[in-house]
């Protein structure tokens, strides 16, 4: 341990501003990258899922008489 007290640790021997500015920016950039990647995955899966389900629904509505729409649970191959 290079520091005797928490106060000394945060002061960083007078260079606290610079050290914490650097580490703060690093944390922000790292978190941004992690969450941007996660967010994009979820969003793409949701959007593409919505689109394909809409397509399926439209195709079913075209292909079958209206009363059987709920019965087909599986996706239709084109």
């Amino acid at each position, binding site marked *: 341990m290079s520091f005797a007290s928490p106060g000394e640790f945060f002061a960083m021997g007078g260079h606290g501003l610079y*050290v914490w500015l650097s580490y703060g920016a690093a944390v922000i950039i790292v978190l941004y990258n992690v969450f941007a990647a996660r967010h*994009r995955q979820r*969003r793409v899966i949701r959007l593409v899922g919505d689109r394909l389900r809409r397509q399926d629904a439209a195709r079913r509505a075209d292909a079958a008489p209206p009363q059987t729409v709920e019965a087909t649970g599986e996706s239709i191959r084109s």
Partner: protein
Amino acid sequence: MTVKELWHKLGSPRWFYGISRPLGLVLGVLAFGLLLTGTVWGLLFAPADYQQGNSFRIIYVHVPTAIVAQSVYMLMGAAGVVLLVWRMKMADIVLKTAVPFGMTMTALALFTGAVWGKPTWGAWWVWDARTTSMLVLLFLYFGLYALRQAIPRQETAGRACAVLAVVGVINIPIIKYSVDWWLTLHQGATFKLTEAPAMPAEMWLPLLVNVLGIYCLFGVTLIGRMRAEIVEREQGTQWVRELVTGSVAGGSGS
């Protein structure tokens, strides 16, 4: 599995999507563990530098980000070659999804370099060889990003970016060399930030840990972005259809 088989599998988005989940989890755990260890070690336990005092601890952010930023560009150059020569779809996905990480890391390296420069040199910005090279690298990243945005057709954009990335990678060593020479012309031998003579082990070990950690972090975010890109591009295929519509009830969270 022979190398050739692996090569063919690497070209398959579906195969990659399958293995990328466990791979991403492992890399995620590694990245978290390594970065936490390296950072706590560097901040709390590494000794202060005899010349720079505690501002030296910025090294544990600055150097790993700078290294990974350059490696990412090299990787994009390699992906560019693969895309142009073998027209491998996955190479274009890498080429596209690696840009945000590389760009933000270059910016972070520049920022931490500036913040480090203030207590060390007394100025926020010094035209040091490394910072100048990083600045040019940032512009190279901007160029790739802008070119991708400017071309509407995806396949065309990918191959145009591949050409640019390859030309950029060829130029990077020349740029670095020229900037080094330029610096000797305009200022004498300056005190370099990261060139402590014979850094003791307790100083460079945490650095090594953080460098490994940030590579793992790159792996995790790249895999995450690639998975999203794969789903988007392969949405016409049966397996993606089953993935995004069939397994909704079972949960397709991450």
